[in-house]
């Protein structure tokens, strides 16, 4: 087994970029910051492709099964002899797959930002943050220790916070970043406690060991964790569910999704990188990483399944009603991640039953490409029209042909139209769902249809609906002769479009499976009729609504009535949160405590002091100044002492 230590460079290069740009960027390097970041990331990308090649096609397989290789293990913080945070690098199918995804998408975003963020004041800082994020994400992907996952988990969270609040003088951006951080932080609390539980009963924090101990039914650890129970559920269930809570927070699963739409306040390339392709799928990755353990507990899996399905449907419905294109994309992301989640939930570990797992990973893979493509496309659109609102757009297909084509491809991909990438992965998911759970299958199918509807609603609204004159948008100064940005913004679109077409043909089932052994799948044409047809119908419906401006959509909307408005209002989840925080926690917990501290706790201390002073004031009469009273007190003292010591204490 050859040495994979050079993988270390893949995260370290972005880190180095971050440090350099962070320290000297503002002053000295603001010119070449972008190039620097891109260059270093290019290197990591190449490296990760090398890794992928080496692992998948050279020496990853040992007698037909892909091995888990721990390339590095360094004890970073020891809690007690066998429980410690080890910084490690794990090489297995999913981590390598994620390496490829993260680096390549990140690279695309870097390139795109060269054009998109051009002339920004804090250009260097932007790239520093991008590198920081990339580093954290890579570190997360490579973690071999669950606490290491948690660390990079937090780092990912904070770099997302920094990037969302990049336009820091925009209050809405600041608010969004705060929201994102706090909500995910809340989820992470669950994650942390989950880790504590697993670590306590597992007696280790090393993922490999945890899996090994919790999957062998007779190990003492497994017995102890399953025998221990709290509120009727076994500690295993608790631990896993709480870990999943962390994942749900990062992956914006219902009801912890509220931060994702607002996060769109960040620069669009950032949304493409963080909130479409990489960070938001961290939750899925986490579940996949711990999957063998999850597979030991039915309850946890069911929770995952239903949360995933619910989010998928919920998000899809909302997406149909939003008018901010980035928000539409955000909700579609949420819905797609829902897919991945329930795919994991319905899966089993190993063999044929591992189909869901494979499908989920496959979808994660394909989704990364077409969704980042969508965002970058939206980015270049926004870059041109300087607005996120559909109503400001329309008929752009002539002005930005490349973007148009790329966007269309992406839409087809996400709609699951063969032969585009999304088709294959979604197909696997549906198959798995069909085999495991009919209800889920139904939801998935309906969601698929919705997906293609709202995506094409988006597409038509941007590129068709009304005829836009060139003049309408040719106003921007820096010579957008045919409306689209410089080549650095177009190149990524083209590449990603190619991927969106191509990656579907990757023999994924041969490479990434739950147990590492190859899994032979086949596209069952009969089976795939239903979803494809549905999607096509949905597309046609969308076309009829939005290709030309006509009242149909509004009529339908009115037909739905209250439900529609509820959907546009995102079903009032945000309001609920705001109510809980602003109306319950602050006034009923925070204020009283703050008040009590000043007036009761501190008040008590003051009271002691005041009482002393008061007593002093009261007894001053003793010192009457009359010498006769003094003599009297004197005699009183004598008498008192005499009585005390002759009669009482004698």
């Amino acid at each position, binding site marked *: 087994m050859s040495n994979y230590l050079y993988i270390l460079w893949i995260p370290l290069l972005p880190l180095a970029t971050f440090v350099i740009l962070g320290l000297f960027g503002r002053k000295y390097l603001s010119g070449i910051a972008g190039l620097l970041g891109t260059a270093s990331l290019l290197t990591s990308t190449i490296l990760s492709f090398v890794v992928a090649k080496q692992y998948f096609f050279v020496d990853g397989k040992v007698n037909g099964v892909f091995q888990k290789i721990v390339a590095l293990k360094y004890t970073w913080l020891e809690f007690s002899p066998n429980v410690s945070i080890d910084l490690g690098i794990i090489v297995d199918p999913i981590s390598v797959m994620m390496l490829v995804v993260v680096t390549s998408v990140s690279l695309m975003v870097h390139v795109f930002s060269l054009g998109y963020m051009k002339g920004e004041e804090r250009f260097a800082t932007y790239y520093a943050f991008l590198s920081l994020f990339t580093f954290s994400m890579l570190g997360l992907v490579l973690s071999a220790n669950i606490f290491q996952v948690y660390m990079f988990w937090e780092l990912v969270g904070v770099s997302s916070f920094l990037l969302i609040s990049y336009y820091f003088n925009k209050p809405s951006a600041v608010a969004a970043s705060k929201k994102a951080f706090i909500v995910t932080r809340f989820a992470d609390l669950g994650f942390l406690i989950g880790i504590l539980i697993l670590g306590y009963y597992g007696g280790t924090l090393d993922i490999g060991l945890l899996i090994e101990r919790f999957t062998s039914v007779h190990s003492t650890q497994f017995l102890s964790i399953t025998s221990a129970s709290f509120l009727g559920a076994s500690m295993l269930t608790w631990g896993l569910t709480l870990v999943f809570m962390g994942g749900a927070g990062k992956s914006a699963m219902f009801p912890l999704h509220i931060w994702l739409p607002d996060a769109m306040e960040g620069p669009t390339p950032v949304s493409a990188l963080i909130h479409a392709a990489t960070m938001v799928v961290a939750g899925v990755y986490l579940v996949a990483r711990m999957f063998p353990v999850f597979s030991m507990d039915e309850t946890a899996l069911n929770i995952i399944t239903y949360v995933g399905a619910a989010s998928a449907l919920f998000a899809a419905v909302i997406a149909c009603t939003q008018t901010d294109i980035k928000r539409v994309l955000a909700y579609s992301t949420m819905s797609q991640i829902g897919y991945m989640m329930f795919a994991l939930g319905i899966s089993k570990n190993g063999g044929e039953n591992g189909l869901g797992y494979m499908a989920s990973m496959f979808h994660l893979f394909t989704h990364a490409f077409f969704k980042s493509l969508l965002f970058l496309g939206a980015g270049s659109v926004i870059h041109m029209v300087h607005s996120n609102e559909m109503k400001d757009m329309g008929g752009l297909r002539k002005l930005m042909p490349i973007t148009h084509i790329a966007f269309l491809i992406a839409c087809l991909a996400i709609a699951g139209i063969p032969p585009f990438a999304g088709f294959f992965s979604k197909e696997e998911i549906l198959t798995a769902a069909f085999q495991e759970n009919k209800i889920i299958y139904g939801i998935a199918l309906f969601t698929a249809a919705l997906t293609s509807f709202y995506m094409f609603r988006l597409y038509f609204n941007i590129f068709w609906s009304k005829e836009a004159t060139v003049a309408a948008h040719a106003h921007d100064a820096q010579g957008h002769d045919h409306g689209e940005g410089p080549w650095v913004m177009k190149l990524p679109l083209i590449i990603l479009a190619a991927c969106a077409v191509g990656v579907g043909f990757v023999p994924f089932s041969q490479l990434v499976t739950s147990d590492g052994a190859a899994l032979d799948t086949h596209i069952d044409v009969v089976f795939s009729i239903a979803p494809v047809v549905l999607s096509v119908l949905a597309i046609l419906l969308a076309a009829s609504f939005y290709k030309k401006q006509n009242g149909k959509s509004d009529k339908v909307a009115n037909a739905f009535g209250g439900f529609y408005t509820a959907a546009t209002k995102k079903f009032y989840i945000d309001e609920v949160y705001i109510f809980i925080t602003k109306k319950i926690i602050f006034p009923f917990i925070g204020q009283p405590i703050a008040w009590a501290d000043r007036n009761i706790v501190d008040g008590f201390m003051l009271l002691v*002091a005041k009482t*002393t*002073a008061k*007593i*002093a*004031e009261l*007894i*001053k009469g*003793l*010192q009457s*100044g009359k*010498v006769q*009273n*003094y*003599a009297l*007190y*004197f*005699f*009183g*003292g*004598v008498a*008192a*002492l*005499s009585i*005390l*010591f*002759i009669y009482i*204490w*004698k």
Partner: protein
Amino acid sequence: MMYNILIQLRQELVLTVLIFLLLFIKLGKDRSNESILNFINAALFINLGAGFCCHETGELFNGMFNTNALIVFEKNLLNLAVLLISMQSYAWLKNSKHLIEFYLLILTSLLGMFFMISSGNLLMFYLGLEMSTIPLAAAANFDLTKRKSSEAAMKLILSSAFSSAILLMGISFLYGTTGTLTFSILTAHLNGNPLQLFAFILLISGFAFKISAVPFHLWTADVYEGSPVAVTSFLAVISKGAVLFTMVNLLYKVFTPIASTWYLVLVVLAAATILIGNLFAIRQDNFKRFLAFSSIAQVGFILIGISGSSQIGSASLIYFILIYIFSNLAAFGVVSVVSALTGKENISDFKGFYKTNPMLSWVLTIALFSLAGVPPTAGFFGKLFLMMAGAAKGNYGLITFAALNMVISFYYYLRVVKAIFMEEHATPIEKLQVPTVSKLAMYICVVGMIVTGLASVVYDYIYSISIGL
């Protein structure tokens, strides 16, 4: 025999000689106050030196007068204190035309104390006591023109006469029940019957009056306030110290058979004294009155130490008195300079004092910290050892009570510091020209306050010569 008298009685003799010298100077042609003061200070210095030559244990006049290393040391302390006081009151006496009378009075009283300390007999003790009290009453009235001064003197003389009547009653009953006045024989006859206990209580009340323990303390504040600062500091430091020395001697040597009783008496007195002293001190604005009550509180701590009834107890007491001399005299020194030069005696007058007189402020501050018992000043050690001695009896209720009272005392000491450093005054005390002698005295005090604590030799020496129960 003669030789013995010369050796063992030397401190008293020197003092007597000094007193007569002063008389002659008074009678002779008048000299400038400065020269007289310098002469007196020199003489007092010699007097202080007298203690350090050769000290041996022994007794004179068949046990009427006895002396030993401890007693000599105690007398030295008092001499030192007198020297410091006389140096500090330089500014005040410089312009007084009765300064010799002042010295006559306080030195006579000092002589009385010497006899009281080394008395081996109730009669001797009584003589010493009165000899030390009566001149002080006169000295309290030294500012003949001040209303307060005469009022103070009146209060002092009347209440002390009353207390000595009570004391005498006690002595008479002791005599009646034991048939002797000699300490060494007295012990054997003590059996703790009610009459003896009553006699003892009368006696202890007399002591409590002198050391101003609650409820026998009421004269203190008024007298301190009314008398001239020098007299006040003499009262606060020296007479208290002398009586305490005697008291420990009596309790530890004579009243051993009824130790269980006097322990409880001390506990009660201590608790009351600390509390009342603190509560009154909080409210005071007149500096001397404030120091009076704070010294009352200090006495409470001293009583706790004595109640430990161990060698640590007596050693800590003497150690504390030494520190107390430095701290209290430093404080009084500043006050006396200020009141002599500006006539201001209120804490509120000291606002913004640091701006104008940093040196005096630091002296006063260190003194206050030492009184409060804050390290690294010696007061910390003094107070702590007293408490330790008390804790030996395992009465932690009392110790906790005292410890918490230390917080109160801390408050009012800090109040003064606050006034000095942190508060503004429309017309702060202007820059003062402190006489060199007084300055010297203050420096001695400061050095004493730092060194006495940190240099453990002092304590260890005192411990080696002091007595246990």
